[in-house]
């Protein structure tokens, strides 16, 4: 088995394949969690999802985190906490009520807070906040910690700094797949491409994915203030921002989806922008606007200091759904990419499901909405 990409999806695939007794090689162009997995906000969350395949997947993803934490694999790495969605004006409140109704229709347990109850439950939020909806049973995990744990538990040594230059079937018609790398051709019974933004070009899926940058901010420690929040605060504008992208995906503008996440360390992680770009720089304009929104929502943040800013590039798809499954015409070539902002939540789950596919079993999660065949393919064999 060859897995290309040591982000969270590749690491999880490597772990679940190894656990089944397969001999796995994990090939990575840079280093583990070097791209999006190492710059993610770490949300293991369903709160912003609408009913549909992504919500189903997110719920299964969260359940797997819980199970792996109990099993010991993720011990100490999964922080269970709710997401609190907040509406700051009438328009947002309407949108939130609508969204909450959709979540409730899927049987999710929600708590609504208004007026005095809201003030008591969320003493740190600004008085203008009208409505809060708490989505329980969610959590937070740090991508690079999960990746490290998965790789260590798999017993596989990552082949670092090995770029994959191309793919194709073996000449002998055996059905095996060959991976061309800078260090030579690697043959395998199965090849799994989990190379994030690099996957589409390798697989001959031009334009199926696009980079979407996010800038984030980390504060100094403030354990008392962090403890005053029951979980992460998510501005409802996050939902409106997602809507906007669905309407005009080719737009080049910048959107802000504010999430204020209190970390285990007592620090706050504040994110993030959604920009149609693929660089990882930070600009004052974006960071200062993001922080202004954060302070408006939670005024006490103003007295904390920023110690670090960073940025990551999500791999988004044209239709907002990830690309997971067998490549049409290539029995032994599988792909798992395009998770945009859900890689941390879905990575372990998808790794488990890919391992099932490789083993010839039926997947537990219905992966047909994510099938790569929905995109136009370009021949892989030049």
């Amino acid at each position, binding site marked *: 088995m060859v897995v290309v990409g040591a982000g969270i999806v590749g690491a999880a695939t490597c772990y679940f394949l190894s656990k089944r007794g397969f001999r796995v090689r994990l090939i990575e162009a840079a280093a583990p*969690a070097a791209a999006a997995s*190492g710059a993610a906000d770490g949300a293991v969350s369903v709160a912003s999802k609408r009913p549909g395949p992504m919500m189903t997947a997110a719920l299964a993803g969260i359940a797997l985190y819980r199970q792996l934490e109990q099993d010991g694999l993720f011990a100490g790495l999964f922080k269970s906490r709710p997401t609190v969605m907040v509406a700051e004006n009438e328009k947002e409140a309407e949108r939130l009520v609508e969204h909450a109704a959709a979540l409730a229709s899927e049987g999710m347990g929600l708590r609504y807070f208004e007026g005095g109850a809201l003030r008591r439950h969320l003493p740190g939020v600004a008085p203008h906040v009208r409505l809060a909806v708490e989505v329980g049973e969610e959590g937070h995990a740090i991508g690079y910690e999960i990746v490290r744990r998965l*790789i260590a538990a798999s017993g596989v*040594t990552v082949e670092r700094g090995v770029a994959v230059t191309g793919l194709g079937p073996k000449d002998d018609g055996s059905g095996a797949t060959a991976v061309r790398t800078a260090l030579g051709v690697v043959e395998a019974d199965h090849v799994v491409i989990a190379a994030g933004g690099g996957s589409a070009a390798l697989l001959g899926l031009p334009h199926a994915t696009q980079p979407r940058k996010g800038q984030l901010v980390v504060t*100094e420690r403030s354990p008392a203030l962090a403890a005053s929040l029951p979980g992460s605060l998510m501005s409802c504008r996050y939902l409106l921002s997602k809507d*906007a992208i669905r309407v005009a995906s080719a737009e080049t503008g910048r959107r*802000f989806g504010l999430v204020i996440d209190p970390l285990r360390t007592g620090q706050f992680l504040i994110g993030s922008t959604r920009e149609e770009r693929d660089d990882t720089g930070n*600009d004052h304009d974006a960071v*200062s606007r993001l*922080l202004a929104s954060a302070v408006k929502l939670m005024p006490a943040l103003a007295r904390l200091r920023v110690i670090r800013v960073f940025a990551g590039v999500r791999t988004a798809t044209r239709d907002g759904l990830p690309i997971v499954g067998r490549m049409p015409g290539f029995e032994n070539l599988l792909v798992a990419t395009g998770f945009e902002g859900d890689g941390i939540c879905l990575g372990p789950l998808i790794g488990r499901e890919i391992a099932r596919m490789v083993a010839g079993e039926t997947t537990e999660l219905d992966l047909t909405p994510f099938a790569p065949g929905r995109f136009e393919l370009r021949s892989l064999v030049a």
Partner: protein
Amino acid sequence: MDRPADIVCDALVVGGGAAGVAAAVELCRAGLNVELVEQRPALGGAYYRQPAGGATATRPGSRRARQWSRLLDELRGAGVTPRECHVFLGVDTHGLALLDDRKGGRVRTVRTRAVIVAVGAVERVLPRPGWQLEGVVTAGGLQMLIKESGEAPTGSVLIVGNGPLTVALAADLARLGRPAVAVIEAGDPMTRPSAALRMAAFPGLVAEAAADLTRMHAAGTPWLRGSRLTTITREDGRLLASIEDRNGASRQIRADIVALHDGIRPNHFGLPPTTRDGLVVLHAGDCREALGVSSAEADGRAAAREAVALLSGAAAQRHAPEVTRQRRVQAVLASLFRPIRDDGGLAALPDETVLCRCEGRTVGQLRAMLTEPDPVGAREIKLNGRFGMGPCQGRFCADNVQALVSAVRPASQTVPLSRDRWPARPVLISALAAEEEAREE
């Protein structure tokens, strides 16, 4: 799109010490519109650090004071009004320089064509078991405190380390009537006659050193050369330093404050390294090469000339004979103070020694990470190992972490624990948050 910048100028000079002031003067004389910013409440840098809030100067009427007032006169003559209490945070990805105006409580953006970074040197302090304890400070930091307050700190001081600054601090303490308990020196200049002879070529320096030594000696501060500190512990509310001499014999010295110093090096931390995207970025003075004040002033002027040439599209070369001269001085001083024994450096430190003081990460934790079969990279050492991830963001530990990585894994190519993102210093959210909040573009 971005809002317009708060400040627009031809050149931004960061740092109001000798190099920065000299650079600002020369840029102005060349007809450029210059902004000079200084993070402290007053210009002066480390060498010309000014007394704060009505305190009296420690060395009034000296050659030092006269040189500084000459530089200030030049600055006034050039018409530069410096901005004090402005901390440089870096250059953002859109090419805007960012300043934290600590008095105004706002981050100011600067659109400029050139940045001259003249932020001086930083003190080298090597980790030692117990150096994270309260009461352990740096000798240079203590010297700055004395220059600003005009007073000695409360409690007895033990000075430990390597290089001439330790003696200068002992002389300052003696001058204030509060002599240090002792100065522990890893080198032994008395046993380096050839270097001492070469010192004779620099009479000004010899006179200054002799004066400091005489004052320290007269105050009864012992100078324990060829010795090193092995551990610091806390006992009955005081610090207990274990000292080992050149023959391996140990003794213990009690003090309220232990001031460490292992030399100085250029400050490059979190600063834009070079010219990029059309923005000219030059480094000047001790932050380019730590050679002291007279070299810094000369290099500041030379950097300004280089910037003017670059901005007019001409080729440019830095030329300053004084820099070459001071490089020779520093070479002589380095051989004079070369440590008597090789104590194994960082590689010899016990596992429990704290390496990152912000997050309490130890030498042993880094060693464990480095001896895993998977050769972790710099980014993983930071993210997973939590080295350089605290409030200082590696300002105080990155070099030591780097050195230990090289010592444990000499074969691997050294990957720097990079710190190329703004903010170079922690900055208040209230100062950084925009007046208007996020909006869709």
